[in-house]
C-alpha cells in the first residue's frame, strides 16, 4: 500500500463511525449495475460494501425538502479575447447550456479560476459573460483569480470569497481555499505579475503548498455548522479538493485533516470542487468529494493518488478543444435521489468503461519529476 493510501485508510478508520457511510441510501440503477460488473480491484471491493464509484450520474438519497437542481461552471481560465477566443467560446457555450436547462437550475455556482492571470480584463470578461445568466449566482475564487492584486478586483466583482446559505433543506457553504498561500514573493522582491505567474503554473515549484482552508476559516465553518442538524445534508463548495489527492499540483488542501475533524460529526457531507479539471470521486469519513469539469482544458490524472473509488473520465482528444471539458449539473429528484452529471460536449458517455479508454491506465509505466527551471535565477 502506498503511503498516501495508508494515510487515507487510517484517516477513514478514525473518522468513519462503525457502520457509517457518507450515504446509506445509494440506489443501484441499471447503469451502475452494468458498470459494477466490469469493475476490478479496490473499486469492486468498495462496491460490495455499498460504496459506488461515480457514474455518469451518481444517484443517492439526499433528504432535500423539495426537488431542485443547480449547475456548476468553473475553471474557464479566460485570457483577454485578443489572446484566446476558444476559452471565451466555451464559457459562452456553458452559460447558454445552463440557460437552456429545463426545469431551470435554482442557482449557478462558479467554482473559481474565471481568469487565467488575474488580469482585470479577464475578470471583467468573465463577469460580462456570466451576466447572461439571470438565475442566482454564487462564486468562490481560484488561485488564477487572486494573486495579481491579492483578490481586490475579484472581491469587487463577486463579493466575499466564503459564504453560506440554506436552500430547500440543504446547507451550502462556499470556501476560499486559495488566498492563504505562504508568502513566497516578498523576500524575492517579485512583481505582482511574477507572483501571479508562479501561482498560475500548476507544476511550479516556487509557490509550494498554497492550498489551504486556514484556522480562521475552519473556525468560521465550525460555527456556521453548529446550529445545523448533524443528519441533514451539507454541501461544501471549494476550488481545491478537501482531501489529499496530489499535493505537488495542489490537488488538496494542506490542512485537510483539520477540515475532516470539523466535519466529523456531520453524517451527510458532500464536497464539490474544481481545480482538477477532471471527473473524480472519493470518500473519507462521512464526506464524499466530487471533482467537476473545467470548460477550458482537462488536466491529466495525477501520476499517483487517484482515488480507488473514481471511475476515470474517458481519454480526451486534444485536437478538439470541446472534448474532455464542459460543466456539471446536480439534480435533487422528487424521489430523494441526486444525480451528478458530467456534461462533456459531444460525449454521451463521459466516463471510461475499459482500460484502453481510461485516462489513468498509462500511469502504470509512467514516472514523472518536478521541473527545475523555475527555481533558477532569474526565474
Amino acid at each position: 500500500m502506498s503511503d498516501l493510501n495508508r494515510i487515507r485508510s487510517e484517516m477513514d478508520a478514525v473518522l468513519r463511525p462503525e457502520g457509517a457511510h457518507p450515504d446509506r441510501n445509494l440506489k443501484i440503477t441499471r447503469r451502475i449495475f452494468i458498470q459494477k460488473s466490469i469493475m476490478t480491484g479496490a473499486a469492486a471491493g468498495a462496491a460490495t460494501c455499498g460504496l459506488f464509484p461515480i457514474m455518469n450520474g451518481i444517484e443517492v438519497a439526499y433528504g432535500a425538502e423539495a426537488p431542485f437542481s443547480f449547475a456548476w461552471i468553473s475553471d474557464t481560465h479566460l485570457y483577454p479575447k485578443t489572446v484566446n477566443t476558444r476559452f471565451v467560446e466555451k464559457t459562452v457555450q456553458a452559460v447558454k447550456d445552463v440557460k437552456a436547462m429545463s426545469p431551470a437550475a435554482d442557482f449557478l455556482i462558479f467554482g473559481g479560476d474565471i481568469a487565467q492571470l488575474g488580469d482585470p480584463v479577464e475578470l471583467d470578461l468573465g463577469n460580462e459573460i456570466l451576466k447572461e445568466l439571470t438565475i442566482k449566482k454564487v462564486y468562490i475564487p481560484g488561485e488564477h483569480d487572486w494573486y495579481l492584486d491579492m483578490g481586490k478586483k475579484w472581491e469587487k466583482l463577486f463579493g466575499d470569497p466564503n459564504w453560506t446559505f440554506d436552500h430547500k433543506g440543504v446547507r451550502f457553504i462556499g470556501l476560499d481555499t486559495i488566498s492563504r498561500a505562504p508568502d513566497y514573493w516578498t523576500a524575492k522582491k517579485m512583481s505582482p505579475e511574477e507572483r501571479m505567474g508562479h501561482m498560475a503554473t500548476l507544476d511550479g515549484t516556487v509557490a509550494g503548498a498554497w492550498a489551504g482552508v486556514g484556522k480562521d476559516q475552519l473556525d468560521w465553518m465550525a460555527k456556521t455548522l453548529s446550529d445545523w442538524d448533524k443528519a441533514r445534508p451539507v454541501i461544501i463548495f471549494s476550488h481545491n479538493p478537501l482531501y489529499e489527492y496530489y499535493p505537488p499540483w495542489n490537488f488538496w488542501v494542506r490542512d485537510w485533516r483539520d477540515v475532516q475533524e470539523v466535519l466529523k460529526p456531520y453524517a451527510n457531507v458532500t464536497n464539490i470542487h474544481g481545480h482538477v479539471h477532471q471527473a473524480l470521486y472519493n470518500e473519507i469519513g462521512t464526506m464524499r468529494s466530487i471533482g467537476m469539469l473545467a470548460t477550458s482544458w482537462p488536466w491529466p490524472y495525477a501520476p499517483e493518488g487517484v482515488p480507488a473509488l473514481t471511475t476515470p473520465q474517458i481519454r480526451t482528444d486534444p485536437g478538439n478543444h470541446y472534448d474532455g471539458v464542459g460543466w456539471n449539473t446536480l439534480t435533487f429528484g422528487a424521489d430523494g435521489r441526486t444525480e451528478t452529471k458530467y456534461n462533456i460536449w459531444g460525449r454521451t458517455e463521459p466516463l471510461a468503461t475499459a482500460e484502453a479508454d481510461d485516462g489513468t491506465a498509462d500511469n502504470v509505466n509512467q514516472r514523472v519529476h518536478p521541473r527545475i527551471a523555475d527555481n533558477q535565477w532569474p526565474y
Partner: protein
Amino acid sequence: MGNSRRTLFALLATGACVGVFALAIPAAEQAGAEEIQATDTQIAHAKPHTAEQLKAFNDVFMEEVRKGDLLFHGDGATAKQMGVNLSATGMACAMCHPMSADIHPHEFPKFQEQIGKFATLRDMINWCIEKPNQGERIESDSDAMKALEAYMYWSNRGSVLDPGRH
C-alpha cells in the same frame, strides 16, 4: 555554443589520445558531429573519466533540459531567443502536461490515433504545437525540438520503456 560545451571540448581534448580504435571506428559514431571537428584524432572513453568531465557531460544535457523546461512552460524570452512560436493561444505544453505527465515519451514510436499514422515523439510534439496550441511547427532536428525532447525524457526518467502502447 554555451560555456559548458566549450568546457566539454577542453576536457575531451585534455583526456584524449590516439589509439587503434580511432582508426577502426568512424569518428562520427563516437561523438556528436561538432565534437569531431575538435577531436578527430581522439577516441571516447580513452582514460577513466574525471569528475570534471562527468560534470561537463551532465551540464551539456541539463542545459538542454533547462531550455526545454522553459519552452515547455511557455517562457516567451526563451522562445524568442530560439526563434520559435510554439503557441498562439496562451496555452503552453505544461498546461495539459504538468511535470510532463501524460506525454509518455517512453511509449513512442507508435501508431498515433490523432495523426492517423505511425509516429515518433517529435511528430507528436509538432501535432500538439499545431493543433491545441495553434503555433508554428518546428524542424524535427531543430535546437528547440532537441531541448523539448531532452526535458520530456528527463522529466519522465525512470518510466518503463513501453514502445507501441496505445
